């Protein structure tokens, strides 16, 4: 059973569609007791880092998410990945602090958002040379846990994994069959 964290931010329909496509049962909830009964937690999210953290704090689930990540595999997708880190300049807000590193606006001399299909460079075979769909204006910096990047003038951190905590910057649920394979691998424990 997958638990999708419901904090009313962003487009979770496509993550649900992907899970249905590979017959994974899921629930959508912001209640700790519901999520604790799941095998893996997905933290979705699009939009603004500062606003997302405000919503998480208003719902009173920040500590619950930190507890969940200690006990369950957690996969953060897009903004959900960024929330796993310590801080973002988007809204000058603290994150969940589950992974070391901060989030800053992309400064690569190319258009922002970094939008479209880009190729992953990784030592992990399920990720390496896969074309996946990115759409984001901020990126992780200073993380020792980056296991895949995409070249955009600079190396854009694409996947982070530390133990059973996984962050995916692109949208695996929007990256065709390659993306679905990556999401499936993440749910099965990841890329290390």
């Amino acid at each position, binding site marked *: 059973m997958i638990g999708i964290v419901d904090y009313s931010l962003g487009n979770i329909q496509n993550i649900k569609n992907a899970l249905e496509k590979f017959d994974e049962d899921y629930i959508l909830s912001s209640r700790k007791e519901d999520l604790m009964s799941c095998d893996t937690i997905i933290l979705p999210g699009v*939009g603004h880092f500062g606003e997302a953290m405000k919503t998480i704090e208003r719902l009173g689930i920040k500590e619950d998410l930190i507890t969940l990540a200690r006990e369950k595999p957690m996969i953060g997708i897009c903004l959900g990945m960024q929330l796993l880190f310590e801080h973002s300049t988007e809204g000058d807000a603290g994150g969940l602090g589950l992974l070391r590193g901060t989030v800053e606006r992309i400064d690569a001399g190319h258009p922002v958002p970094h939008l479209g299909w880009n*190729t992953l460079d990784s030592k992990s075979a399920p990720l390496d040379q896969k074309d996946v769909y990115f759409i984001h204006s901020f990126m992780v910096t200073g993380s020792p846990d980056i296991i895949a990047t995409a070249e955009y003038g600079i190396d854009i951190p694409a996947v982070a994994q530390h133990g059973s905590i996984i962050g995916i910057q692109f949208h695996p649920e929007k990256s065709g069959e390659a993306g*679905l394979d990556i999401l499936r691998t993440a749910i099965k424990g990841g890329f290390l």
Partner: protein
Amino acid sequence: MIKKRIIPCLDVKDGRVVKGVNFVGLRDVGSPVELAKRYNAENADELVFLDISKTQDGHDLMLDVIRETAKELFIPLTIGGGIKSVNDIRQLLNAGADKVSINSAAINNPDLIREAADTFGSQCICVAIDVKYDEARGDYYVHTHGGSKSTDIKAFDWVKRTADLGAGELLITSMDHDGVKEGFDIKFLKEAVGLVDIPIIASGGAGNINHFVELFKETDISAGLAASIFHNQEVGINDLKETLDQEGIEVRLS
């Protein structure tokens, strides 16, 4: 490096694809879902559905189209046409759209761009701009309502303003080139790209594969959009991308 995107655009009215679609072997050429599948198989990078319904019932049917398409296809989906409010955008995103494209409503109420970007994030707000050169006034001007109404807004000014208001992407259609099939409006697009640091999708004028080669070689445009040449199979998306690849332009190959 990020790939140049090839995007087919489908006109949808009351939940059905209405014009110019001529796929051989497709059981239901009016079904947006069937066509979306076809384009997915051809390796399209993204799909745009332009909702040209005139009624609220028609727009509501679009939500069903998005839901059904998003269940079967796992590539990005942009919806444009008739979007007037943050609430309209919310409904489309909740149904499974990845981006929305706002056109006339942004001209009538530019704050909608900012409000939408603040609510959902810039990355899902695409502003569509229809431009036409005005001989008498000696400059490019913005048109609305499918290009039928002219405005007093200079196109280059609007390009800059929409980016400042928080648009995450622009879809620029050159009305002078649209349907003529003699190539994209390289001159306008080249200048527009220099004005903003957000991605731009070029539309209007593609008639053959070489027009896309020209677009990506002559400008820093991020994506090329076309409708009839893909629908009529004058240009196959796989063939197009293979040629672009041979020309040294980075594209996503199957």
